């Protein structure tokens, strides 16, 4: 699962989706069975794609996710970019590209702060199915 995806998935429990605590899901507590494993996977760089989705990114949530995964280097607010092809913007767009598209969460777990349900990621694929007691 890419970091970008962590920025748009929330707890799938219906009762949680009405609360702000359902997003982002948290990587702060991992289990011994499925320890957190990250990897870098190359993806062709498209400055336009990053530029296009930047307004869709929830920046405060991205800061939380990055911090929980050990990256404290992000700027505090969404970078302002007017021209994705201007040379002065290349570095920041490349950094975002690496963070959002090339950082893979191979396995681990994500926790909902509202209901504490844990979603596992295995072989890079998160599972959002719910146990019987969490489905109304």
């Amino acid at each position, binding site marked *: 699962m890419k970091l970008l995806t962590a920025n748009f998935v929330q707890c*799938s429990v219906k009762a949680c989706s009405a609360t702000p605590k359902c997003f982002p899901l948290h990587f702060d507590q991992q289990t011994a069975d499925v320890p957190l494993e990250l990897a870098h996977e190359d993806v062709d760089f498209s400055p336009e794609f990053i530029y296009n989705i930047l307004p869709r990114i929830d920046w405060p949530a991205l800061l939380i996710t990055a911090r929980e995964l050990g990256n404290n280097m992000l700027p505090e607010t969404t970078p302002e970019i007017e021209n994705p092809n201007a040379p002065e913007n290349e570095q920041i767009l490349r950094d975002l590209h690496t963070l959002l598209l090339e950082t893979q969460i191979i396995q681990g777990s994500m926790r909902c702060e509202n209901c504490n349900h844990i979603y596992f990621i295995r072989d890079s694929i998160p599972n*959002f199915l719910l146990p019987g007691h969490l*489905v109304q």
Partner: protein
Amino acid sequence: MPEYLVLLAQTHESFRKAELEALAVLENISVDLSSHDEKSPFLYVTLQDDDEAKRLIQRSILARAVYELWGKADSENALHEDVRHRSSSRFEKYKTPSFKFDFISHRGSRTKSQQRDMFESFDYLGFDGPIKMRDPDEIFTIIEEYEPAYHSNTDPPRLSHIFFGRFIGESQRDVVDKYDLKKRRYIGTTSFDAELALISCNIALAGPQKIVYDPFAGTGSFLVAASHFGAMALGSDIDGRQIRGKKARNITTNYDQYKLQSFFLDTFVGDFTHNPIRASFKLDAIVCDPPYGVREGLKVLGSRDTERYADKKPTVLENGDLSHLRPDYIPPKKPYHFDALLDDLLEFAARNLVDEGRLCCWMPTANEDYGERTIPKHPELELISNCVQEFNRWSRRLLTYVRKVREGDDAGLVSSHREKKVYSQVQFRDKYFSGFSATANSVV
């Protein structure tokens, strides 16, 4: 403005116009396609210039090629007259470039020497450039069409149309073969025909810098098709086995096979009725073939037994473990209505699509029952096309909706018409099987 002839494939005719309309939107071309005739492989369009003509069909699956129209008639003699009349001012421009002639026949054929005679009959064009079979500067094409052989096999076929044109550009029809399911490493019983998956993604305006989502992704047929056109593809499915595939054959290895790895966003396992995508995250398009429960009946998360989880407590196993934390845990599921799922889909699309983003959704229709009322509607979505694929005993449709431009935020979007809706008891599944044999329902 010059007139062009688009040569169309004689298949999936009801999708051709919708595809070209979508490509015109993508390329920002204003074009009148009203003369499109599903029975004819020819379509005349008026466009600004060659460049527009090229761009209009360069991504098309159902067009074959586009030509600058130099002449059209119903006999060879009349064709020459029309070429002289319509195009003599063009002759001079092509006096020196290298060129060759091409010949295409619909429902007919001519021997090589007959073709040569035909090419020679155009010597009044005065082309003095060298004839090059490979990479000529220009290709001039004669296209003829014969009437269908209704009468008897002995009657000589009758010429109905003949055209002369300058070749402008080709479509992408050849990729249909590249994505053919027979050559794809990971497929399943639900994999979607490659040609129609590509067409669906064209109609959805899949393209670079966009995110395309399939919430019923299965083996990922629409994902690779969307990625082929340069979109980042996202998929999910309630069935983890399909999403994960096998070790050496799965959606990721299909991406490797087509060298599209950089256009894969993600897949996840999830029930559409408990979708984890946040409301504020906008998608550019949704393309899908929803489950219509033909074989197994449609299931969503939940339990038929409402008592069982009434205390909202997890199930504890004898050894004290929580059952849902075991890797082999299978969440309970309950039956659901196809109509209700379609409504959920439209609601999700209204909420999560960008303004003018598209939902392309396949839907089976029992023929004798098809009517306006069976097409789902949503006040925020405009239905722009409805294309049919006919099979012997049933048909399915590709419905395309455009998310209307928002006037405010999405608050209060969940439409009230939803609450009181009663879903019909006769589901498509019953119709579908009753068409085959009286006992077929017992198979379900």
